[in-house]
């Protein structure tokens, strides 16, 4: 396997080039250069597909990785050696991620060319989309946390711009600001963690960090009282929380739907939000070493369940999808926490596929119906058959119905969670993790099918002519062209072929050799279990004193010493070596349980929204509904209390102090002091000499007679007195 700059760089660079060209000449190009963007992403898809092929259809080598380094800049002088390296690190995980990202991105670009047609922001949209994709690809490629952080932030910037792309809308501004700042909270901690690692190790290369963990370099070090590993792991995970919108930093993601739907599909569903999961997977050994996996698991569980509950009451189709995204991200993070490394990553991939598809379908609905309030939709399946088909597949997948990808990945997470919560002998309180997990699974099935039913089934409500209320939730499509008739959907390369392609990948067997996703009931044989085989938690001891490969034309062949595939069943690092038997049974139980729960959820939705035999519970629990509709009042709390009252109050106070008090008195005060001195001199003349002197004449008579006569007698003579007195004092002080 020969890898040169030429074969890897294009993955990252071709979108960048597209970005540059579109940024400068976009307006002059035909169709404002959207084809260029799409093409560039496709190019990087080709290149990453090649790598993917090498890694997957090459030999099953879990431990194979490419690591190339070049010096970005160099501060060395004399004895001080300080280089800052950049490089690429591709292992199986990266290869899979690359092909997923570029593939999904290609389809989304393709779809966008249709969706954004005749949109005023068409051009700008296709400036930021390729930049964003390239950043994501760069993040996946990058071999160290520092460059990861760089791409991480660039993605933040892109999402900021895409969310706020409809700049006429005040809400768009709010949403973009919120998104950037909320993620920024995590980012600064991530930066802090990176800095801490860097200063201690002298590098933030994954391989160096793994090696350091293996050599136990971190042991015994502490920062601000807590163990170094915990500190850095926590910082990095906080970063992940920001990016992956985990509780309590989840507030930004729902608002991020202000952007155009394909943008949301790419950023807030498929790729960017998974960056957080990505970094926590990359740093998994550190998390384990820092012993914060329980924290991760809990956070994930809370997010998974909480988001699901909110999704239940949403009426905006995009909002439902947004919260389902949150909830699914929760599952991924939970998976990382409970140590089901492989499944968590698999869920990243599967989720990316079906969630992208879901968003695109939503986009296609909105674009053709100009309506995104579910109560105003319904019965669309005869108008939008392809969309309906794709969306149904994805819904089945996300709901965790067997034979679909969601089932495969999510249920393995749940199984591990079950094991982690009840059998791994952890703190009993951690039982909350699987409980919330399963509950969330049920809710997921419920609200997803609720969405399907309300949108595609029942009678069509789109021709009710009051489009008035709820316009706030629309994106730009909502505004123009109300009351169009829904044109019947045809098979269109740009509209629904992407959906269909994506929906193909919602089938489970692409990802694992078994129908159930469990270890039993293999039908396709071990060869197709590529995913389980390829992806495993990095075994850090392999990286001790690894060679440093300069980025050179010729590739050094690590291929020479490859260990061959060996099926790792145990899931990475979940505490002490897990008991095979218990784990196995846990998975079985989990699978069965979640199947039951999923079907229960679907059935409930069916009863409520198709048969209507059960009234929706919203009416039953108004209070709860209100709480949920207000997203547990998190946004209000953050904005009203923390920011407006707390932070701004503090700032106003400080600013007032700075100019009003400090500057006025402490600084300008000096001038005042001088003036006072001068005044006092004057006062001495006028008051002491004249007033006291003159007025005092009658008062004191005998003893001070002389003195007073002296003082009262006019100015010049007072000068004399001063002269004599000072002279006397001089003479007095003569000491020889």
């Amino acid at each position, binding site marked *: 396997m020969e890898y040169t700059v030429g074969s890897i760089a294009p993955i990252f660079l071709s979108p960048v080039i597209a970005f540059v060209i579109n940024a400068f000449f976009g307006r002059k190009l035909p169709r404002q250069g959207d084809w260029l963007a799409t093409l560039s992403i496709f190019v990087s898809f080709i290149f990453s597909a090649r790598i993917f092929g090498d890694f997957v259809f090459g030999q099953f080598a879990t431990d194979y990785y490419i690591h190339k380094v070049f010096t970005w800049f160099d501060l060395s002088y004399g004895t001080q050696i300080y280089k800052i390296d950049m490089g690429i690190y591709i292992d199986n995980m990266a290869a899979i991620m690359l092909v997923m990202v570029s593939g999904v991105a290609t389809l989304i670009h393709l779809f966008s060319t249709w969706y954004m047609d005749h949109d005023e922001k068409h051009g700008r949209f296709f400036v930021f989309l390729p930049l964003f994709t390239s950043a994501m690809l760069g993040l996946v490629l990058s071999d160290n946390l520092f460059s990861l952080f760089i791409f991480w932030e660039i993605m933040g910037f892109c999402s900021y711009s895409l969310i706020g792309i409809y700049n006429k809308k005040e809400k768009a501004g709010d949403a973009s600001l919120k998104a950037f700042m909320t993620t920024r909270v995590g980012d600064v901690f991530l930066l802090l963690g990176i800095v801490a690692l860097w200063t201690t190790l002298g590098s933030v290369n994954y391989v160096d960090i793994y090696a350091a963990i293996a050599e136990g370099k971190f042991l015994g070090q502490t920062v601000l009282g807590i163990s170094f590993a915990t500190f850095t792991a926590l910082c990095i995970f906080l970063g992940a929380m920001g990016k992956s919108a985990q509780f309590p930093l989840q507030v930004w993601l729902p608002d991020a739907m202000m952007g155009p739907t394909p943008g949301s599909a790419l950023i807030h569903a498929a790729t960017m939000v998974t960056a957080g999961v990505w970094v926590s997977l990359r740093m998994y050994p550190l998390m384990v070493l820092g012993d914060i996996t329980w924290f991760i698991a809990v956070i994930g569980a809370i997010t998974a369940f909480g988001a699901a509950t909110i999704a239940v009451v949403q009426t905006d189709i995009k909002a439902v999808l947004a919260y389902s995204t949150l909830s699914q991200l929760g599952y991924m993070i939970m998976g990382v926490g409970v140590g089901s490394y492989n499944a968590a990553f698999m869920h990243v991939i599967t989720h990316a596929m079906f969630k992208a598809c879901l968003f695109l379908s939503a986009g296609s609905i909105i674009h053709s119906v100009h309506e995104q309030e579910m109560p105003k939709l319904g019965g669309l399946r005869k108008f939008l058959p392809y969309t309906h088909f794709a969306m149904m597949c994805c819904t089945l997948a996300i709901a965790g119905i067997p034979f679909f990808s969601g089932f495969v990945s999510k249920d393995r997470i749940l199984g591990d969670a079950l094991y982690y919560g009840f059998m791994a002998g952890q703190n009993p309180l951690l039982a909350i993790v699987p409980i919330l997990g399963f509950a969330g699974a049920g809710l997921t099935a419920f609200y997803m099918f609720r969405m399907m039913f309300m949108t595609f089934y029942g009678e069509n409500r789109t021709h009710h002519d009051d489009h008035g209320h709820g316009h706030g939730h629309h994106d730009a499509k909502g505004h123009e062209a109300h009351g169009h008739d829904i044109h019947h959907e045809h098979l269109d390369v740009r509209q629904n072929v992407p959906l269909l392609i994506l929906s193909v990948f919602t089938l489970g067997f692409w990802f694992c050799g078994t129908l159930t996703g469990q270890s039993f009931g293999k039908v396709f044989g071990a060869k197709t279990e590529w995913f389980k085989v390829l992806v495993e938690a990095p075994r850090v001891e392999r990286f001790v004193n690894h060679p440093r490969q300069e980025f050179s034309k010729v590739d050094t062949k690590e291929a020479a010493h490859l260990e061959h595939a060996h099926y790792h069943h145990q899931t990475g690092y979940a505490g002490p070596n897990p008991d095979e038997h218990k784990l196995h049974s846990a998975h079985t139980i989990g699978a069965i349980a979640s199947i039951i729960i999923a079907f229960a959820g679907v059935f409930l939705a069916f009863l409520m929204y198709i048969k209507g035999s059960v009234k929706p519970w919203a009416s039953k629990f108004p209070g709860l509904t209100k709480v949920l509709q207000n997203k547990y009042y998190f946004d209000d709390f953050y904005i009203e209390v923390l920011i407006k009252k707390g932070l701004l109050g503090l700032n106003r106070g400080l600013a007032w102090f700075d100019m009003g008090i400090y500057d006025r008195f402490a600084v300008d005060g000096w*001038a005042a002091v*001088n*003036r006072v*001195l*001068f*005044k006092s*001199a*004057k006062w001495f003349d006028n008051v002491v000499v004249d007033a006291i002197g003159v007025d005092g004449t009658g008062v004191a008579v005998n003893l001070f007679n002389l003195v007073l006569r002296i003082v009262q007698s006019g*100015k*010049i003579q007072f*000068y*004399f007195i*001063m*002269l004599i007195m*000072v*002279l006397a004092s*001089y*003479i007095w002080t*003569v*000491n*020889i």
Partner: protein
Amino acid sequence: MIQQLFGFLSYYIPEIICVVLMTTLLVAESAVKDEHASRGKIIGYALGMLALCLFFLIQNMSEAPIYIFHNAITIDPFSTLIKIIMVLGTMGTIFLSYSSKDIYSNLKSEFAIMAVGVLTGGMLLASANNMLTLYLGIETLSILSYVMSSFKRDESTSTEAGLKYVLYGGLSAGVALYGISHLYGILGSIQFVEMVAKLPGLEGTNLVLVMISFILFFVGLGYKISVFPFHMWTPDVYQGAPIPVTAFFAIIPKMAGLAALVRVSFIFFTSNAALNVSWVGLMLVISAMTMTVGNVTAIGQTSVKRLLAFSSIGHVGLMILGIVTLNDEGVRAILFYGIVYMFMTLIAFYITSHLSDMYGTDSYDVFKGLIYKHPTMAIIMAAVLFSLAGMPPFSGFVAKFNIFAVIIEKKLYGIAIVAAINSVIALYYYVKLAKTIILGQADGEVKVAGFTPANQAVIIALFIPVLFLGIFWEKVMTISGNAVLFIK
């Protein structure tokens, strides 16, 4: 004997010229009838004579020190340089008096007469080598100054200024004289050289008495250079006197007094350690107080004339620091400062005089927006103010720098900090004036009239050294470095 005396006289030409000039001016004053034609001639004559005097002085610069008239007078480069400064100052002020309307209108050359007289006294003081000549110098200086300060016969303020000056001067002179008398008694002579010879042997009561008498004696010089607390007459007299006179007072008596002070300090307070200590202490205290009082009081002034008066007090305070160290660098710094100070003060008063002639007052308001009324004047005035404040690249900075250098060499950081803070205070009021001149909005775009090209030429001519000495000050430093006085 006689030809020896004449030999001496050959060194004494400048003073003689001054005396001759004074008398001839008196004659001319009484002889010439028609003022307006004659005035220019008379002034021109006076200036020409002074220029001649300057020429002879420059001749004397190179000479080694000479003691003439039985050691009554020293002619050494130090005194000569001081005299040069004084003569230049006198010339400047005389020209100013010529153009100024502040002095009563039908003046022909009284000012010149008096000024030259004071100058003579100053020269005497600068090169006095025994107590008698010193005393005579002070009195010559004073008595004529009294007259000058009350030049505006018809104005009560001027007369009052003169009165105060007389009384205060009389008292200080008397006190000083009383001190001198005791010095004479204890040290047995009025010749500096013989007096110094006695000093090392002194101890006990005599030493204390000597110190006390020196302090008394110091009053006489102190009030001439108007240091705290003997400065009190200064603002009143400066305010009361006509502007040319004020300018004159701000330069000549101060220079002369400083010269005498330097000479006395060097002669008497290098030999005896005890005396040295207490004298240096006295000087430190006095300079600190003088600076602070001068600058702080200057802040609140609204009359520019008073402002300059107080600021001159501040400057003297700074100059005295040059004496503290009792070394050649100190003297060099003082001399350099004196030269620069003379030019700066002349310009400042020149412009102030002209403006107050035009507007009838010298408050800040007449300076408001001067830049729009008369750019050249405004820019030069601002530059001079910054120079007075000690900003580079103007010579005021170099002067300040030298003083700082001297005191810091002696590691007197405390007084250095005091001086530093004082220069900030000084900057404050100078910049306030500069602000009024340049940033202030002129009320009405009336151009300043009647500022003849001649006047502009004079101002610019005076300004050139202010700027030039700030950048290429090596030569002048060398001159004043060579001019440090030789004891014995």
